[in-house]
């Protein structure tokens, strides 16, 4: 992303003009009022390509204030090009403080992951969503998918899971695993791994989803029920990892595989880099206070 400092100086706080922000806020309010329902909105051109999270960026731009502290992650990491670019974008256009610490952030924009550390009341998690419609893979007509949502006709979602089991012997969907929100709307948490689905359920933070190219916003208000779809004889299960994180020893967290060399050396470590660093930091300070040498 190339941002011209001089050019941006002419823009409003957080880039979008106030009228656009009000329009997006109205969509967000409606989305919060109807958990899991996809609200159409007039998505604007952003100074970055689609696929770079323009939906999430517009949502963040509409809710962020000067007092907010922003964290941006991509695949769990604060350091990828995408995350760094979006963070810089808001540093420049809104002058807000940014952080990599989950606990310190008031707004967290994410692609692919939900932080491992439990979110708190008052925090907002903004997801960048490429494809918001969970029914689309089998029903390409939008008039029909809207009707299916309106009439709560969700048999098709189970057809997809059925096919999965018929082909693989188990539900092989690991990303964009469909959920039912507050017992009503079926929603695509895309493209987060299903490992994170349980974190959406009864979460203390507000969760907002923005799809820029598809012009949709949806939301999960705090403390909302989010249930992953499944069959009685093939219940929903999260991915399990055989070993703990090679760096911090954490168990029950989502791990990424790191290639160490070209001889096949590899290790598994936390995909949430902040979580991993904080744990290692704590371990160091504990060791230090015990007078040990690490």
């Amino acid at each position, binding site marked *: 992303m190339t941002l011209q400092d001089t050019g941006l100086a002419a823009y409003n706080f957080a880039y979008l003009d106030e009228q656009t922000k009000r329009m997006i806020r109205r969509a967000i309010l409606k989305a919060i009022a109807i958990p899991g329902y996809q609200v159409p909105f007039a998505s604007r051109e952003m100074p970055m390509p689609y696929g770079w999270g323009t939906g999430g960026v517009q949502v963040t731009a509409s809710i962020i204030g000067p007092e907010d502290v922003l964290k941006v992650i991509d695949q769990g990491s604060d350091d990828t090009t995408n995350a760094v670019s979006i963070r810089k974008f808001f540093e420049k256009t809104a002058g807000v403080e940014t952080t990599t610490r989950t606990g310190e952030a008031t707004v967290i924009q994410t692609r692919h992951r939900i932080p491992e550390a439990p979110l708190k009341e008052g925090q907002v998690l903004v997801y960048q969503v490429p494809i918001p419609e969970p029914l689309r893979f089998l029903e390409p007509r939008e008039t029909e998918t809207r009707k299916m949502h309106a009439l709560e006709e969700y*048999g*098709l979602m189970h057809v997809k899971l059925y096919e999965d089991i018929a082909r693989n012997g188990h539900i092989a969907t690991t990303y964009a695993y469909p959920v039912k929100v507050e017992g009503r709307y079926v929603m695509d948490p895309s493209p987060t791994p299903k490992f994170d689905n349980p974190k959406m359920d009864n979460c203390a933070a507000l969760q907002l989803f923005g799809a820029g190219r598809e012009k949709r916003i949806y939301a999960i208000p705090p403390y909302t029920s989010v249930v992953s779809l499944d*069959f009685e004889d093939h219940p929903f299960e999260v991915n399990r990892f055989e070993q703990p994180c090679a760096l911090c020893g954490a168990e029950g967290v989502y791990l990424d595989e790191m290639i160490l060399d070209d001889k096949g050396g590899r290790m598994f470590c936390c995909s949430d880099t902040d979580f991993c660093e904080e744990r290692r930091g704590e371990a160091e300070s504990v060791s230090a206070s015990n007078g040990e040498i690490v």
Partner: protein
Amino acid sequence: MQIPNGLDGQGAERHGRDKPLLSVSGVSHYYGDRIGCRNVSFTLYPGEVLAIVGESGSGKTTLLNCISTRMEPTTGEVTYRFRDGSVKNLYRMGEAERRFLMRTDWGFVHQNPADGLRMTVSAGANVGERLMAVGERHYGRIRETATDWLTKVEIAADRIDDQPRAFSGGMRQRLQIARNLVTHPRLVFMDEPTGGLDVSVQARMLDLLRGLVADLGLAVIIVTHDLAVARLLSHRMMVMKDGEVIETGLTDQLLDDPQAAYTQLLVSSILQV
């Protein structure tokens, strides 16, 4: 067949099925100034098979769409008796209820199986979809029921994970039938169900349909231009021309002794074959 001859409604009454399943009253549909169908009335009893016969442009497909909630009639009423005995006007029901009815108590067999199937999911999922739509959440049971139905329509059980794209036209049509019947509907609409098939497989398909309809006690409204299909499957016939019903009666009687000149012409043309 269970239904004795010579009975237009009264026969059903004698068998304790005394109340109409579907009542059509004064149904007309206009496309602008052009008549689709005009002032059609009839009743259909449980387990009864009615053939609507006519050439293309006769209004038979318009009528089928009007009575199966696929297209609202310009005037007229269609009422349906639900399993709980209540009778409802189809066009005064909410859309949710109407769609629910269509995928549970009703079936619709299209001439072209691709219109009634999901071509990119397996045969098993095609059959199982209606079960899942009404809340079945046990994979093993869905699969068992799907296997059962594939067997009933003479599709080998080991084809359950194949997509209909890999099936012949006849197999696709049989799969479409299984997909419709899995929820044990009471009324099935069929639009030229053998129309797209090779002549060589038509006879087998008609046999299969005849058996299923009788075994399940289905009420069927079948639209066809083919009097041979009507003769084999239906108890009663309605002949349409230019949007209107010109003759109606028991199939055997009507074919033996057609009254309207147009029907006589139709009958003489097939009986020569």
